[in-house]
């Protein structure tokens, strides 16, 4: 095992898949000569050439449509959109075309398309460039939406996404690219499934369900809570759609308490969807109302201070846990 960054893990996954299968190619804005806005594709143009590493115009609807067409034609495109915020321009292609073809044409066409894009805030990109829109896409039957949080999962899930016969939205986070973690040596083959969450930390008093960047904040909170005797079980959802509901329910049956921590907004989002499922399937195991840690219900402020105040943080998670874990339980 080596320790590498999330960015390097993504690049390795793309390179290994391009070496393994010549139908795999990448396209996006400034990904070739420039190496990508977040330098994920750096060096790939030199290695694979312009035919398989293609710069595109700044026209998300057009390039997403082109990628869908390429996938229908038998290629396996990995499309990079500069951020999930710009994917709104391509939302008709994603929602009305990519997600629908297999259903509307007798299951015949496959669209083995991966769309990579970072979401989330925290880097002072302002209201239009700091959104967590995964819930929008996770609403749509026909799409898979994954949000790995660690370099190991990022590499393993990106490889699975490339090999999947259906469109996969692979949502990264601007503040994850430099996160480091252990990943098997280059060339050591492994994949991570697209439909499985993972218990990243075992605990008995409360289940904290989270994903993407919030996993790291949550793990820090859980370690500190443990010093006070509260053992939190931390589940990394990894896939927003499909949901690994069995994993969640098994944990809830054990802990009877749930905190959901996500960077998205509160209303009508991923966390509320999860909460409804948990109440549906594990109502008789709940000992306290589900607590939901989210971004403030405002467009993201540009001001550094206000942005920090708007994002869910360590304290919010600790407070949510303490709201539903009785002190007497911990010290019993």
């Amino acid at each position: 095992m080596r320790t590498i960054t999330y960015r390097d893990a993504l690049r390795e996954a793309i390179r290994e898949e391009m070496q393994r299968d010549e139908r795999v190619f990448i396209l996006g804005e400034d990904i070739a000569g420039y190496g990508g806005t977040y330098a994920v594709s750096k060096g790939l143009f030199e290695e694979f050439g312009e035919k398989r590493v293609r710069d595109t115009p700044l026209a998300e609807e057009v390039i997403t449509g082109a990628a869908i067409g390429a996938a229908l034609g038998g290629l396996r495109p990995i499309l990079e959109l500069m951020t999930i915020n710009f994917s709104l321009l391509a939302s008709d292609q994603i929602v009305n075309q990519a997600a629908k073809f297999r259903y509307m044409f007798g299951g015949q066409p496959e669209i083995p398309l991966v769309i990579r894009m970072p979401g989330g805030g925290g880097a002072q990109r302002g209201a239009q460039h700091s959104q967590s829109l995964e819930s929008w896409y996770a609403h749509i039957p026909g799409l898979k939406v994954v949000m790995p949080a660690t370099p190991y999962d990022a590499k393993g899930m990106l490889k699975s996404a490339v090999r999947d016969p259906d469109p996969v939205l692979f949502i990264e986070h601007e503040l994850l690219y430099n996160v480091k973690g252990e990943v098997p040596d280059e060339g050591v083959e492994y994949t991570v499934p697209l439909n499985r969450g993972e218990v990243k930390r075992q605990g008995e008093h409360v289940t904290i369900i989270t994903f993407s960047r919030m996993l790291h904040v949550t793990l820090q909170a859980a370690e500190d809570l443990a010093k006070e005797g509260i053992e939190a079980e931390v589940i990394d959802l990894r896939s927003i759609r499909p949901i690994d509901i069995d994993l969640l329910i098994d944990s809830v049956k054990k802990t009877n308490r749930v905190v959901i921590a996500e960077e998205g907004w509160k209303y009508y989002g991923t966390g509320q969807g999860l909460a409804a499922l948990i109440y549906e399937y594990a109502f008789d195991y709940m000992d306290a109302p589900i607590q939901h840690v989210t971004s403030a219900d405002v467009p993201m402020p540009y001001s550094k201070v206000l942005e920090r105040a708007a994002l869910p943080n360590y304290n919010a998670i600790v407070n949510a846990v303490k709201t539903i874990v009785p002190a007497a339980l911990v010290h019993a």
Partner: protein
Amino acid sequence: MKTVEMPKMGDTMEEGKILRWIKHEGDPVKKGESLAEVETDKVNIEIEAFAGGVLRKILVPEGKSASIGAGIALIGAPDEPLPEGVAGNGAAQSAASTPAGTAKSAKIAGAPVPEDTQAVSQQASVQVAPPMESRAHIFISPVARRLAEESQLDYRHVQGTGPNGRIIRMDVEAALAQRQAVAASVTAPPVTAPAAPVPELAPAPAAVDTGEAVEIPLTPMRRTIAKRLSQSMQTAPHFYMTSVIDTGKLADLRRQINEYAEKAPDPVKVGINDLIIKAVALALVRMPQVNVSFAEDKLIQKKQVHVGMAVALEQGLIVPVIHNADRLGILDITRESHRLAEAARTGKLHPEDLVGGTFTVSNLGMFDVDSFTAVINPPESAILAVGSIAPTPVVVDGQVVVRDRMKVTLSSDHRTIDGATAARFLQEFKRLLEEPFGLLL
């Protein structure tokens, strides 16, 4: 008699809420006078009487809503009889959602629930414990409710420690622990002074000297003992069966085990009672018909064997449980029984130490008791009362010799266990103690 109806005041209005009655029952009303203030979806407005007379009856009380056209009050002459159904104090308690232009429909809207309906709803509520009426204002978490219902615990009086006084899982577990903190013997054992103070247990309330006697208020534990054991004696038809057991080989085995155990890295001293618990557990595995609970319409045969051990405390009795005793080795049973006895004396038992028992052993052998009978600890079906081991003259091969003997008496609930079943259980238990290598194998 004229019915005042909820007027329609705006295109989108579907119902109106009575904010305030300006006139009260018995007040004279002139045509055009304001009767009540009504809140619609847009505005608050006063509604006027369209006829004069006396406001005889208010059908929709303040704070309640009524649909457009529904009757909200009756205006009539002072001595005019009220329509059937609204006489007496039958003012509508619920929203009059049915248009009530006539006295007959007013009855639907505001009349008391017919008796037969009440009877039905009462009958229905009998089947849920506790009744729906009494749980309306009880906040209890789903898992706590499920646990309480599975354990047939009436949670209406459980103190909730969660937000809004919500009863949460740990509250139910504590209540179950208290319920279990009751055992079992008819003969209350002599009080043994605890070695250490018992900070966790409630202090005994002050006694009152009345001159002729001393009145001692009940502690919660004493109250529970009284309630639970009365219930056991009154509902479970007890029958008793005594067996005399030769403990010679058992004493030898115990000596050998202790010679070994005192040199173990974690030395421990095995008592006769630990061997008895092990024998009970193995006998229950072989005779699962005894490891049962009576649940009105069915028997519940437990798959696991959890043996409770009655411990005498100054405040009363408590029955901590050795879980899965059949699967524990003798040294582990001993360590667990020591831990539980110590925790019981110092008030440090955890709720999980007190739940789940499927059979209880009450041993008064140390008090030089020949034999006794014990009261079953519900929802268990049997309890074993163990007396002292005493040198006894017995006949062996035609000769009178002195051997150690122990009398045990099994109390069984005849609803679940028949005499032959109890006898076979006792036989199995006796064999395990008289040929005690079976305890090790």
